[in-house]
C-alpha cells in the first residue's frame, strides 16, 4: 500500500510540461573548489590551516555558548570532566564505546558511575544520567558544529537526552565547512549511511517566549567539546 502514487506522479509530470522562467542568475563563476559544492566560496570564509580552523571553531563556540577546550591528552580531558562532575554534582555518566571515549573513561574518577549503552539501554535510566559522553564524526569550523551520527556517537538519544552533552574529538577531525563534513561522510560510509546524521551547534535553545534566548529547551542545557591532539 503506497497510496496515490501513480496519480500523484502523473499530476507532477503533467504540471511540468511547460518550463518555468528563471528568477535567478546562473552561477556567474565556475566552481573553483569542489564539484559537489560550487557555492562554497559565497559562504563565510574559513582559514585554510588547521590552526586557523581550530581558532574559528573556538570563536563560534563562544557565540553558541559551547564550552570548548583543547586538552593535551585524553587523561587531561578526563581530569576536566572530573572537575565538571564535582562542580555539578554528577553521579552517573552515560557513554558508548570508542577509542577516544574509552581513553577518557579510563581516567575518570571512580566515584562517577558509568552507564555503558552499547548493548542497549533503558530509556528512563539514560534520562536519569547527568551527562552523556560521545565521540563524533567531525567538527565544523565555519559554524562551530559537531557532526554526530547513529554509528559514531552511540545512537540517536545519547547526545540529546542527558542534560549535559560532552564530545571528545581529535584535532584531525576538524573540517572547514558543512560541505567537507558531507564529503567525509560519503567517503567513510559510501551507500550505507547511518540512519541518523546531525549537526549540533551549541546547547539546545529556544526563543519562543518573547524571542528571548533560553538554553536547554528540550535537549542538553550544556555542551562541552574537548579537543585532544
Amino acid at each position, binding site marked *: 500500500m503506497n497510496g496515490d502514487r501513480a496519480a500523484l506522479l502523473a499530476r507532477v509530470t503533467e504540471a511540468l510540461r511547460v*518550463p518555468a522562467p528563471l528568477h535567478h542568475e546562473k552561477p556567474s563563476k565556475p566552481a573553483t573548489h569542489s564539484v559537489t559544492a560550487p557555492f562554497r566560496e559565497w559562504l563565510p570564509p574559513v582559514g585554510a590551516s588547521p590552526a586557523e580552523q581550530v581558532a574559528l571553531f573556538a570563536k563560534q563556540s563562544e*557565540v553558541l555558548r559551547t564550552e570548548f577546550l583543547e586538552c593535551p591528552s585524553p587523561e587531561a580531558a578526563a581530569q576536566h570532566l572530573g572537575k565538571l562532575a564535582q562542580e555539578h554534582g554528577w553521579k552517573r555518566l552515560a557513554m558508548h564505546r570508542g577509542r577516544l571515549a574509552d581513553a577518557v573513561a579510563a581516567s575518570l574518577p571512580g566515584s562517577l558511575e558509568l552507564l555503558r549503552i552499547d548493548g542497549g539501554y533503558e530509556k528512563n535510566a539514560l534520562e536519569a544520567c547527568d551527562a552523556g559522553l560521545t565521540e563524533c564524526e567531525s567538527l565544523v569550523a565555519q559554524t562551530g558544529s559537531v557532526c554526530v551520527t*547513529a*554509528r559514531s556517537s552511540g545512537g540517536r538519544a545519547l547526545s540529546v537526552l542527558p542534560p549535559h552533552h560532552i564530545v571528545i574529538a581529535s584535532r584531525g577531525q576538524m573540517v572547514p565547512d558543512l560541505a567537507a563534513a558531507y564529503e567525509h561522510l560519503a567517503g567513510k560510509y559510501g551507500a550505507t549511511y547511518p540512519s541518523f546524521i546531525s549537526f549540533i551547534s551549541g546547547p539546545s535553545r529556544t526563543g519562543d517566549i*518573547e524571542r528571548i534566548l533560553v538554553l536547554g529547551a*528540550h*535537549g542538553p542545557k550544556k555542551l562541552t567539546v574537548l579537543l585532544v591532539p
Partner: protein
Amino acid sequence: MISAPEPSTQFHTDADRTTADEPRRAAVRKALGNYKVARGKTESAFTSWEHARDAAAAIKYEGVNHLDKYLREFEEKFTARGGKVFWASNSAQAREYILGLARERGVKSIVKSKAMTSEEIHLNDALEKEGYAVVESDLGEFIQQLMHEPPYHFVFPCMHLKREEISALFERELGSAKTDSPEELTMIARRFMRRHYIDADMGISGGNFIVAETGMISITENEGNARLTTALPKIHVALIGIEKMVPKLADLALLLPMLATAGTGQHLTCYNSIYGGPRQPGELDGPEEFHVVLLDNHRTRLLADPEQRDALHCIRCGACLNVCPIFKNIGGHAYGTTYQGPIGSVITPHFRGLQDWKHLSGASSLCGACTEACPVKIDIHHHLLHNRRNAVQEQKVWWERLIWFGFVELMKRPWAFKIAMRLAPLGQKLHALVLGTPLDPVGAWTKTRAFPQAAAQSFHDYWQERKAARK
C-alpha cells in the same frame, strides 16, 4: 450551528482588531526588531549573500522543475533502506494513513514535533477525535496547543504572547507556579515533555528538505524536541510536502546556513538532522519503522502554473513575514491561513481557491521587502500582482468593466475630457450631499481621508492663459 464567516470578512474583521491593538503590535515589532539586527549581522558574514541566493534558487529550481524524477529517486533510495513511502494526494488520504497506522500498531500516545503540514491537514483534530493523546513538543507549538489557537507565525508560533499570558496559561493548564522568567517557563515545559518522549509510541515530525540522492529527509530545529521525537518512539512518521525536494545531499551545505540566516539570524540552527531510514543493523537505538508521507494537497496545482512555480521553492524560513509591513500591523491570525504573510498570500489561493483568498493578495503595499528578504529569490510581490490579475480575469465584475469602458471612451476624446473637468466642481458640490452616508460612491476613501478638491482652473487652461499674457 453558526457558520464560519467568509475568509475575506474574517480577514478584514481580524485585521482591524489587531491594528487597533497597539500593545500587541508593539510586542510583535519588538520581537521582529531583534530579528533584523541578528540577521543583518549573520548575512554580512557571507562572502556574497547575493551569489548565495542565486545558488540556492538554482538548487530549488532544479529540484522543483524535475520533481517527478527526484520523487522517484527518493522513493527508491529510501525504501531500499527499510523506509516506507506513502503518497497522499490530499489531506484526507494523509490523515487516514496516519490514523490507520496508529490503529494497526496499537499506538496509545503520540508526540509531535513542529510540522506545518500537520496544521495544513488538521492532523491533531483527527487523531484526538479517535482518542489518541497528541502532544506538541516544540515550545511555541505546545503553548499554542494549550491556547487552542493556530500558530501566529509559521516559524515563531507564539511570538504575539507576553510572558504573563504564558505564565497564566501554564498555571491554568499545568498547575505550575506563577513566574515572569522565560527561562523558568521553558523549564516547566521541558519537565512536562520529558515523560511524553519516553512514553510515546509514535513520533510525528515534518521535514525541511527531502534529499533525492541519498533518500533522506532533513529536519531543522533549535530545541532538540524533533531529535527526541525521532529517537525514542518505535514508529516515526514524517509528513512532508512534495516540494521540499533537493537533488543532492551536498546542497544542504548551502541551504541549511541560508535557512538559519534568513529564518532567525543564526549561522546554523542548533540541530540540523538528516534521517535515512529506521534503525539500521548495528545501530543501538532509533525507531523500528519510518514512514514518510509525501503530501500533494494542491501543490501540483501551483506546480502547473509556470509563472508562479517558484513559489514552491519556499524553504519556510519566515523571512518574508518578518520584514512585511502588513504582517507587522495585522498580525498572523488575521490571514486565517496555515501559511501567513506574503508567501501565504501567494500560495493559499492556489491551495484553497483564488476567489475565496484573492483578498490576501490585495493586502500588500507591494514594497518588495519580501522578495528582497527571500533567500531563494521567489518573486513574491509580483506573484501578488499575478494573483490579482488572475482573479479579475477569472471572474470579471460587470460594473467594473462598465466603468473602465466609460473611462477609456472619455480619455480617447479631448472634448469629452474637457467637459468632464468643467463638471467636476459641480460633481463635488453634489458629493457633499451624500458625504458620510452609505450612498457615497467613494465612501471607502472618504471614511478616513478628505477627497481632494478639483482645481478651479485646469492646468491646461492656466498654461494657455500664461502664454497669452506673456505675448
